[in-house]
């Protein structure tokens, strides 16, 4: 059982702040690090895995600093996002080299056991450069797990992995979390994080935007005001009707469209067709104008 703690950690590159005063604690179980691309996830991951010094603040594993501390890697398994450049090695040779670097007493046995865990025994004698993305990802995980670490850090582990392999990987990570390991993975895809992690940390623009179990985060995200663009046979008549709805916060005319700001997504979407039919209005178009994940994150930060 290990706990990874960031204490007011910041990191800047020149005058660009990549991570801004983040304090969080990652304990046993699966935690998802969620944020849009460029939010600072990779920088955070690098600091947590001892591959980047925090510009200020502290990053510790069970109380010990991780920067320039080679010994922490006895407890950390790292799966970087970077591709393996060891294409000339077979899967087995690569995992074995990792076991040897850890000076495991039974390196050969540990290698076979972990290849079994990630279900890569059969292709293990092939060279890494013949592997599919999902296979390379599994071999990377095997290499990170071969010394039985209490902490597993994975940077965007599902990027470019096909859906079937993704399911397989998720099952594996879930199992590792259930065993009491501290598993932290980063992703910019909400659904991925939601399906796997019990606990979610959200980072946006280098800031720690939210933290909690996925239900709470999901509610935060769906309950936010949403902007819709509506086009109908009579926009002014529709505007009057909409304004009377409890879920609608604001309506404005913009050319051929009505901009509608909605509080409660569910009742608005369910109610709109009936409302229009009752008053003989035809809805030509209804489109969310800010459904991007970025706007969801922007809302979380501004909150």
């Amino acid at each position, binding site marked *: 059982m290990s706990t990874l703690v960031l204490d007011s950690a910041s990191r800047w590159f020149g005058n660009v702040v990549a991570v801004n005063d983040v304090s969080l604690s990652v304990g046993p179980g699966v935690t998802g690090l969620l944020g849009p*691309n460029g939010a600072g996830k990779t920088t955070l991951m*690098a600091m947590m895995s001892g591959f980047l*010094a925090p510009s200020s603040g502290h990053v510790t594993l069970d109380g010990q600093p991780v920067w320039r501390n080679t010994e922490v890697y006895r407890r*950390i398994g790292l799966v970087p996002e970077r591709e393996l450049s060891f294409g000339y090695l077979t899967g087995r040779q690569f995992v074995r080299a990792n076991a040897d670097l850890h000076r495991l007493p039974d390196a050969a046995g540990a290698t076979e056991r972990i290849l079994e865990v990630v279900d890569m025994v059969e292709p293990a004698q092939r060279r890494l450069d013949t592997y599919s993305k999902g296979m390379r990802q599994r071999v990377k995980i095997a290499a990170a797990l071969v010394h039985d670490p209490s902490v597993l850090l994975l940077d965007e582990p599902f990027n470019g992995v096909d859906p079937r392999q993704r399911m397989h990987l998720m099952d594996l990570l879930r199992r590792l979390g259930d065993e009491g390991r501290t598993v932290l993975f980063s992703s910019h895809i909400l659904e991925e994080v939601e399906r796997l992690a019990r606990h979610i940390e959200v980072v946006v623009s280098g800031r720690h935007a939210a933290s909690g179990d996925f239900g709470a985060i999901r509610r935060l995200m769906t309950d936010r005001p949403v902007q819709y663009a509506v086009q109908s046979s009579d926009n002014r008549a529709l505007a009057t009707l909409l304004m009377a709805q409890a879920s609608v916060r604001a309506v404005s005319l913009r050319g051929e469209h009505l901009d509608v700001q909605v509080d409660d997504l569910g009742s608005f979407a369910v109610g709109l067709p009936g409302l229009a039919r009752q008053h003989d209005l035809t809805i030509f178009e209804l489109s969310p104008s800010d459904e991007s994940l970025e706007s969801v994150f922007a809302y979380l930060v501004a909150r």
Partner: protein
Amino acid sequence: MTSAVFNPTIAKLALQALLGRRRFFLLLAFPVLLIGLVALVTALTDGDAAYEILPGLGYPLVLPLVAILAASSVLGPEVDDGSIAYLLSKPVNRYGIAISKWLVALSATLVAGALPIFVAALITGDGARATALFVGAAVAGTAYSALFLAVSAVTRHAVIASLMFVLIWEGLLGNLFTGVAWLSIGQWGLRIGHELSDQLPDPANLPWAIGASVVVTLVGVWFAGDRLRSFSLRGED
């Protein structure tokens, strides 16, 4: 704390990195061409024209080029693409990694750089001169490989930076200003070789040549290890 000693796994991986890439054939081509050229000129000409190839081309150019190729192959690509993180996320002493990789680069430099110079020099006759040149090349190869390993640990443009050092500093400026010999790895090697055969030049004093070679070697390997200790992965964001 793990100790800073030779790590066979790191050395094995470095060797595989050296042999497993296309660069290896380039590394192989240098000695073959050098020996071939010297043998050809020896067969076609009289006098010492063939030997002149060695202090003119083999020693100042082929040897450092082989050292650059070897040193950058064992460390450069991994640092460039960040995949050295796979080695560094292990409880392995960073200086041990540097020492192991340097020994592999050094071996390659000796086998593909110093040894072919010795063989080529033997073809031109005069065994003492050949031995002296070999000792000089071995000393210079030792310091070169450590220096270029350190350069590979610092910059993504290691090959360019190392080439500049060899071609512009040691080559161009070294030919124009004799004082550069005091700060030229190649000249230190020649000075040490001079002790065995006075057909080699005498560009600096002997204690300086020995001391400077040792210092560059030790500091180069230590520095590479220290850079590995502070190796940072920078994300795209």
